């Protein structure tokens, strides 16, 4: 690539940095200087290349806003360069004007096939050159502005979705979901489906005494503290929060995106919840003289996942036997205890060594026809 000719540079009166940048590709130095002068006089920043190879290098290094391309060039010809620019998404939007001989219809047809945006005939007439360049420039700038607006709107939309999602799923999971928006298999777009889920139910032991003995505004503040630490633990391990009611929290793993280590994530989340809540419980004990703790029930099984509700109100919901079982186990769990169904415990067996594990035998749970093997895990 050669620098802008002295004459053209002088004529352009040192175009501002934001000047419209045009690359002129022509192996004839007189034609190059001629085009530089005319475009420079219009305040455009003109760069030049005298062959196909240097033109491609220049475009890749610093994409111009328009290319004036002679058809006949040493090395790669104008058609090849044009076709390459138009086939690459990074350069496809750069307008290309092919310079051809007036009577050369064949070149024009080849140029159209190569994706040229316009043609300029030799002899090049000043008025025609400027009219074509300015028209394409306006088109290009309008297209660029629309693209910028579209991108800004897209960013804004995704940010709004991210904020909304981040209240229900972990921030990392929210990012993955947003990243897959628009694809056919994006989470939350599918109809309800059956899938294996690890359900974690957490409940505050001693909540009744809190509501009976402590002033309402304190209760709300305490619940916020409680849910804050449990939510952090759930998100830390990328669980999806399905429901928060009273003092109970329902979290699912392996949904809406598959998690091959869902059982392990659930166990770590449960242990994390108990550990994170311990200092909160200690503070409550000091402040209010009450004993509290988190009771957790967990179950693995097939459940129905999907958006449930009416056209006016929808909820991303998990329903099915593992939810009921986890709820029953939670009701049985003592403070700082995790009760796990037998199926889930089998998946966790190698992970709980070193912890206090207590088999509770087969337990009859309300609503279950068969007793369920239950294991208690403590920190």
């Amino acid at each position, binding site marked *: 690539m050669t620098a802008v000719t002295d004459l053209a540079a002088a004529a352009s009166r040192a175009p501002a940095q934001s000047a419209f940048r045009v690359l002129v590709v022509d192996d004839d130095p*007189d034609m190059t*200087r001629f085009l530089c*002068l005319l475009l420079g006089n219009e305040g455009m920043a003109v760069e030049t290349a005298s062959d196909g190879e240097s033109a491609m290098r220049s475009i890749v290094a610093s994409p111009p806003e328009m290319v004036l391309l002679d058809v006949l060039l040493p090395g790669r010809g104008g058609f090849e360069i044009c076709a390459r620019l138009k086939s690459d998404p990074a350069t496809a939007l750069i307008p290309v004007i092919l310079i051809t001989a007036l009577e050369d219809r064949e070149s024009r047809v080849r140029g159209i096939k190569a994706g040229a945006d316009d043609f300029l005939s030799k002899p090049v007439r000043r008025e025609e050159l400027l009219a074509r360049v300015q028209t394409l420039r306006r088109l290009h700038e309008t297209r660029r502005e629309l693209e910028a607006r579209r991108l800004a709107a897209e960013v804004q939309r995704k940010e709004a979705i991210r904020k909304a999602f981040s209240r229900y799923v972990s921030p990392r999971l929210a990012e993955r979901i947003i990243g897959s928006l628009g694809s056919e298999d994006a989470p939350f777009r599918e109809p309800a489906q059956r899938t294996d889920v690890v359900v974690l139910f957490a409940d505050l032991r001693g909540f009744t005494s809190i509501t009976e003995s402590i002033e309402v505004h304190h209760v709300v503040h305490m619940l916020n503290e409680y849910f804050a630490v449990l939510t952090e633990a759930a998100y830390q391990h990328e669980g999806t929060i399905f429901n928060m009611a009273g003092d109970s929290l329902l979290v699912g793993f392996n949904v809406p995106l598959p998690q091959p280590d869902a059982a392990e994530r659930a166990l770590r989340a449960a242990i994390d919840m108990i550990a994170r809540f311990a200092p909160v419980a200690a503070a409550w004990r000091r402040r209010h003289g009450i004993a509290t703790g988190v009771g957790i029930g967990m179950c693995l099984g097939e459940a129905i996942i999907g958006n449930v509700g009416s056209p006016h109100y929808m909820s991303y919901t998990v329903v099915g036997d593992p939810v009921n079982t986890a709820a029953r186990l939670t009701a049985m769990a003592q403070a700082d205890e995790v009760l796990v169904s037998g199926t889930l415990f089998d998946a966790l067996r190698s992970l709980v060594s070193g912890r206090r594990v207590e088999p509770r035998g087969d337990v009859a749970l309300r609503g279950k026809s068969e007793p369920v093997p239950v294991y208690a895990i403590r920190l």
Partner: protein
Amino acid sequence: MNDAAYHVKVDKGLADLIPTFMSNRKKELEALRAALAAADFEQLRQLGHRMRGVGNSYGFDRVSDIGRSIEEGAKSGDKASLEQQIAHYGEYLSRVQIAYE
């Protein structure tokens, strides 16, 4: 051929480019003569094509006309016509007079 000058009117906005343009035409004439002596028709065709494109853009229509004739003569291998056109080009360049307007 007579001794009359060839008058060309050129946009005054191009005035700064003309000295180099004319200098390049003279180099071009030498290249044409060398190519003709070597019977390098491909080189003659390329030079003719270039003359055709650049001449009338600057306002030198005759340069384009001669270029077209040279390009066609090179394509058909018509050495006599090429000799005539190149001689004519030399004569033109020696007599051309430029007026800026």
